């Protein structure tokens, strides 16, 4: 009898955790331990040789963290996952497993500011070169490819421009030269978009955002599809004897989860941005309600976007599923269940009015995060994108008057009330 294909909602609650044999504990135990005892010298040797699966040291794997990894892998429809301390760490682990000194990445110009800085500044220190291109133009990605390109990188939904990535078209560009497309799916979450279904090869998340959903806990994760042909000649580190892990050949030995094993046993083991077990537990508590929260985030964000469109103190509103939005068609294709909880708008009166708006909101929280159950607000030009020049800000889609809202789960009328009274104050 064929195995049942369980629905997304069931996976949110069950994937990655079966009650343990010893206690039968229904909730996921928090394995707050650094290390795990070996049964014997031979067992220890087998674990270190990767001849058997098991836990050695929590920098490399931990049963509570594994539950998060398997759950997100299942939600994304992927083969395997590796959790990390933050989303920034997860994307770093993915890219440093693909690229070495002298390699090249092609990335969307509209990336989240922190990611842009990681690629443009920190990776430059490792002599990994990144070309940033127009995120809306797959041909621009193609033109930027070089013989040493090892990855193409984009976001399902850009932040804060909220541009929707044509994942299938950009995957074709990457596959044309035999390299993977890495997609940051943070702002969509697997509830709204599963990039593997459109050709992406690796997905990364800041689990801190919608997956966790409660704004209490940092975390990141990378997921591999299990479908990329690592033996195509471009990735000898996947097929040849590993210098970093005593001669293991990751693709031959672990097949469709070889990339995750390499990222775990080499990149994570040596760089060390591990997720804490307690954090994994807290993030999993959030994931249990992902399928209930996301529709509400989307419904309320669309309602706020429509409300602002008609407001006299608002110059423009940007939400991908809004009528007339330049990304509406791509959003209908890639985000048919909703375009997430984030929108941006321009307050009439430019930057000063924008600051007055932010100082006038009563329960919308002014802070540098998105995807919380609580509604959030920020002025990107003076905060998240402050380290960029004004030209770089504009290239990333940040204008001086832009306000970013992350719409939470409060009573919709209350959200609209708070926005309205703050807009009124902004015009005084």
């Amino acid at each position: 009898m064929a195995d049942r294909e369980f629905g997304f909602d069931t996976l949110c609650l069950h994937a990655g955790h079966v009650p343990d044999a010893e206690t039968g504990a229904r909730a996921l135990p928090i394995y707050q331990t650094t290390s795990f005892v070996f049964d014997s010298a031979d067992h220890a040797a087998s674990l270190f040789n990767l001849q058997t699966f098991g836990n050695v040291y929590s920098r490399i794997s931990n049963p509570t963290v594994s539950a998060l990894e398997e759950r997100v892998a299942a939600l994304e429809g992927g083969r395997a996952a590796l959790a990390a301390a933050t989303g920034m760490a997860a994307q770093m682990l993915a890219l440093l497993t693909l690229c070495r000194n002298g390699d090249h990445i092609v990335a969307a110009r509209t990336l989240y500011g922190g990611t842009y800085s990681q690629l443009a500044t920190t990776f430059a220190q490792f002599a990994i070169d990144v070309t940033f291109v127009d995120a809306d133009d797959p041909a621009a990605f193609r033109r930027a490819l070089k013989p040493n390109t090892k990855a193409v990188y984009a976001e399902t939904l850009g932040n804060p421009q909220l541009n929707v990535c044509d994942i299938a078209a950009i995957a074709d560009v990457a596959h044309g030269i035999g390299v993977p497309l890495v997609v940051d799916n943070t702002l969509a979450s697997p509830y709204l978009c599963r990039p593997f279904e459109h050709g992406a090869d690796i997905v990364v998340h800041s689990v801190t955002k919608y997956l966790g959903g409660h704004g209490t806990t940092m975390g990141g994760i990378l997921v591999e599809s299990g479908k990329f042909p690592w033996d195509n000649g471009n990735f000898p580190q996947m097929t040849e004897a590993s210098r970093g892990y005593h001669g293991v050949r990751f693709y031959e030995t672990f097949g469709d989860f070889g990339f995750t094993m390499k990222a775990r046993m080499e990149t994570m083991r040596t760089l060390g941005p591990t997720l804490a077990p307690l954090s994994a537990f807290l993030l999993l508590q959030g994931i249990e309600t992902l399928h209930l929260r996301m529709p509400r985030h989307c419904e309320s964000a669309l309602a706020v976007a429509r409300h602002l469109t008609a407001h006299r103190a608002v110059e423009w509103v940007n939400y991908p599923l809004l009528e007339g939005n330049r990304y509406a068609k791509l959003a209908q294709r890639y985000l048919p269940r909703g375009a997430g909880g984030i929108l941006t708008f321009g307050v009439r009166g430019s930057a000063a009015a924008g600051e007055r708006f932010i100082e006038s909101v009563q329960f919308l929280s002014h802070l540098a995060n998105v995807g919380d159950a609580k509604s959030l607000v920020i002025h990107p030009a003076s905060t998240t994108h402050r380290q960029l020049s004004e030209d770089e800000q504009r290239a990333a889609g940040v204008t001086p008057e832009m306000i970013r809202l992350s719409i939470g789960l409060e009573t919709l009328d209350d959200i609209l009330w708070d926005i309205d009274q703050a807009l009124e104050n902004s015009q005084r």
Partner: protein
Amino acid sequence: MPIVDDIAGLRRILARAHVVAVAGLSEHWYRPSYFAAKYLLDHGYRIIPVNPNHTEILGERCYPDVASIPGSVDIVDCFRRANDIPPIAHEAVAKGAKVLWMQIGIRSEEGARIALAGGLDVVMNRCVKIEHARVMGGLHWAGVNTGVISARRHA
């Protein structure tokens, strides 16, 4: 007997088996066949290497073919090309084995037909190590999506 491809069926096969003949087992520690055989040894199975070029692998006596193995065999696990599978399937039937297992990347419809006609279970295009770890526990710790959804205690 159908080809076994579901979690309950794989669990049944792996729970009942004790002796696994590994056809095409390599002497090199970094080859997948060696990883799989070492894993099975570590998980309580007896393994019997089958490789005409060696007399001993992993401390176990090595036989040139399945027919030469004295005593009974539960699973014949094949690390051989698809073309080599049908004769191994005939030997597995003659030996009274219960399962013909073709490793990941190996598909032989003819081998499967022979084994099924002989009353064996057949597993095709799956790794015995990865499937054991997937359905009996362990693979989960590597962050792999096992597909196991259950509220029963882990066996």
